[in-house]
């Protein structure tokens, strides 16, 4: 055997290589492990609710009313009471009453701003605007919540003469500040992914800039834009500190944007601290968390599917 032959068939002297790859693999799947654990623990604790609470109780409960002298079906969240009522209807209602207007506001501004950044703004404007928006995304939500509570709430009340100083609309305004940067980033990304040839083709046919944007660019990017809106909606549903501080936290069933509401997130944040571990109330709060998690999970998956579909389409 010559030395080249020896060299070529020499045993690999990098056993560490195998070890490192395994370690990296474990770190890689850590995200899968964590998301599964979150799923598992939320549902494990949440399901224990049904040891003592019937699924119907989560919607409402027949309670004897001493004034009307009969049983009334009460749709309310009243966790600390002689007869605790755990209807999640007011909480879901509150969550949507905040998240929906917040998503509408941030989508209108986010899509507009995304179009501006991608189609109209000069490179220089874009390079200064984007970091500024990143700064907005970096403002802790507790800070926005505090300002809503301390400043904006009064301003809104003076403007609209609302009954409650803290209400769903004030919360929605705050939440829209959080979802806006998310939507802008994704919308801009979606628009910029549209190939230049498509725009050129439109211009070559005599279309103006805005005809091109409306009839060519935006329709081509529509799935990316809807993914952005879905993701923004998911974030709005999950936002905690702003709604905890700015919506008044009254668990009412209402469709009035200017009413105080209590969202699922705020409800967990406000009550979990005082609850006895292992009690019925404790499990119900976990169940609310599990429902919230499922909603945002589904929204995330939807937006991801939509984005992937768009990516595949554009690659072709």
């Amino acid at each position, binding site marked *: 055997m*010559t*030395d*080249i*032959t020896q*060299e*070529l*068939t*020499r*045993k*690999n002297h*990098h056993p560490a290589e195998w070890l490192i790859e395994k370690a990296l693999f474990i770190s890689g799947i850590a995200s899968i492990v964590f998301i599964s654990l979150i799923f598992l623990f939320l549902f494990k604790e949440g399901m224990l609710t049904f040891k003592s609470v019937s699924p119907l109780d989560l919607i409402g409960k027949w309670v004897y009313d001493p004034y009307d002298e009969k049983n009334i079906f009460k749709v309310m969240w009243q966790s600390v009471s002689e007869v605790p009522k755990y209807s999640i209807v007011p909480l879901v209602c509150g969550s949507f009453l905040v998240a929906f207007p917040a998503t509408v506001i941030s989508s209108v501004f986010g899509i507009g701003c995304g179009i501006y950044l991608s189609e109209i703004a000069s490179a220089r404007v874009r390079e200064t605007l984007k970091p500024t928006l990143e700064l907005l995304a970096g403002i802790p939500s507790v800070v926005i919540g505090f300002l809503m509570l301390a400043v904006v709430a009064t301003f809104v009340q003076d403007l609209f003469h609302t009954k409650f100083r803290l209400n769903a609309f004030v919360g929605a305004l705050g939440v829209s500040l959080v979802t806006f940067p998310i939507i802008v980033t994704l919308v801009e990304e979606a628009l910029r992914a549209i190939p230049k040839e498509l725009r050129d083709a439109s211009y070559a046919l005599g279309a103006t800039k805005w005809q091109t944007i409306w009839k060519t660019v935006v329709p081509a990017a529509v799935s990316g834009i809807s993914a952005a809106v879905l993701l923004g909606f998911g974030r709005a549903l999950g936002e905690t500190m702003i709604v905890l501080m700015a919506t008044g936290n009254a668990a009412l069933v209402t469709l009035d944007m200017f009413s105080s509401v209590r969202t699922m997130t705020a409800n967990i944040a406000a009550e979990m601290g005082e609850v006895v571990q292992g009690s019925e109330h404790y499990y119900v709060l976990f169940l609310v968390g599990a429902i919230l998690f499922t909603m945002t999970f589904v929204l995330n998956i939807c937006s991801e599917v939509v984005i992937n579909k768009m990516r595949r389409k554009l690659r072709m």
Partner: protein
Amino acid sequence: MMNVPVEEKIFHAQKAVPMDKHNSSISIKVKDLNVYYSSVHALKSVTLDIQKKAVTALIGPSGCGKSTFLRTLNRMNDTLPGARIEGSVIIDGVNIYGSEINVVALRRIVGMVFQKSNPFPKTIFDNVAYGPRLQGIKNKSMLEGIVEESLKKSAIWDEVKDRLEKPALELSGGQQQRICIARALAVNPEIVLMDEPASALDPISTAKIEELIHELKKNYTIVIVTHNMQQAARVSDFTGYFYLGLLVEHGETKKIFTTPDKKETEDYITGRFG
């Protein structure tokens, strides 16, 4: 099998060549080599012997498989997802696609220079010392010795000896490419593969690289891919013409460029191609 003008080779090699370790004059024996990328059949049963301490040029239109072939010789195709290789490449009696082959060791024996110069964003010294350091050489003076020798072999020592601690990316394209050659030589390979090493360079830098190749063949087996036929004619001893994944013709450069056996080869060489 090819008729090898042994006398001529020895004449070229002169005294720079140490005693030939192996009796055979064949460096690489390629037999029935097939390469598939996913569903594309990129190389179709290529059989070829590559002569020791000579320059073999691979020519052909782009997409003909010449670069793919080159990359099979140091198993760089292994890093591409979906690549499948059949057949054998025998270096020194060992099939490098055999099961007990140490790919890392193979790449030290078969060095490679890429089409676009790709020095690391490190100093000139650190670039050339990269390979030796991988092998665990830490001794400063030993490294300095290897770096100097490699840079001298690559004919760039005089240009950079005073600025070894400067970033390699500050050099010109031609100089960068010679640094990359020095970097490959520092690992002390037997065979050097060059994938269009001068295609991104100006004529003066190209001339320097060609001169260097001529110098290097005294000590190394060189396989070079080029789309420039004049270059192939100038630097190589043997030439292989690839077309659509097939090795159409292979032989002495002089013969290929004057009296090729195949009509396709003649068409390509005389520019009547396509």
